[in-house]
């Protein structure tokens, strides 16, 4: 294993992580909800009275966040190497997988691990390993 020092951003990632933690704390302590993005979005597809507005508001905040970020700092550049067919397949897998797996990187990987949920620990290990293996296959075996 070699470390990619060129792209390594420990401080930006640590401070960004703290902000993500604060956002989760805010939603938990004020709204009583877990900041799991796939759950918040997914449940909008089976809307229940009285349970819609906070979800829409959270998603709206997430979507407009780059516009607010750009007022204060320069947005970091995005590099998306995947082509459109790959993006469609990846999106479908992420959509189906996060609903059956009851969470994603935020709900399991941050909130679930923070409250030491056994299900979230298992899910996080599973999706991390699947991510490692998929990238290994795509980058090192398939070409």
């Amino acid at each position, binding site marked *: 294993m*070699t470390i990619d020092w060129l792209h390594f951003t420990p401080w930006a990632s640590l401070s960004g992580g703290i902000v993500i933690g604060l956002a989760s704390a805010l939603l938990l302590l004020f709204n009583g909800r877990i900041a799991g993005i796939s759950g918040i979005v997914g449940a909008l597809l089976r809307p229940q009275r009285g349970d819609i507005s906070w979800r829409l508001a*959270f998603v709206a905040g997430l979507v407009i966040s780059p516009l607010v970020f750009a007022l204060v700092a320069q947005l970091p550049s995005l590099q998306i190497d995947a082509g459109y067919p790959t993006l469609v397949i990846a999106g479908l897998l992420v959509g189906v997988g996060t*609903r059956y797996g009851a969470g994603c990187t935020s709900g399991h990987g941050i909130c679930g691990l923070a409250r030491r949920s056994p299900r979230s620990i298992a899910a996080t290990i599973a*999706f991390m390993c699947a991510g490692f293996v998929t990238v290994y296959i795509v980058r090192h075996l398939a070409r």
Partner: protein
Amino acid sequence: MNPISALIAGLLFGWGLIGSGMTNPSKVLGFLDLAGAWDPSLAFVMGGALPVAALAFRVARQRSKSILGNPIALPTSTRIDRRLVAGALTFGAGWGLAGFCPGPALASLAYGGAKPAVFCIAMLAGMALFEVVERARASVPAQPSPERAGRH
């Protein structure tokens, strides 16, 4: 339930994702590429978020209601079943293919061009597929087990 605090939480969450580098798929894939030039940055995202979130959960456990008076809804299930693991593996495969997970994909919609939009539409379609399958499954009466259905 109060949408203002949810909006601020979403905004802050997106801010953290952008600042940390999580919205950049090439950085995410650099973290997942253990065999290549490995970028360990994203482990620091977890390292920053976990202690803050853990503290919040500790506070939440001592309260019966949230600050705004809502019930605190924490999952209670502890069962690790095939559904959970298969779902997480499926999600991880999709994550590794494009470098997008749900939060960063939504947070880059407004500045990432057409690609995040295509990913998000496909992700919503995947979630809708889950709803359709689960609803169809719920409406079909449970099949009698072979023993009970045995003819006399």
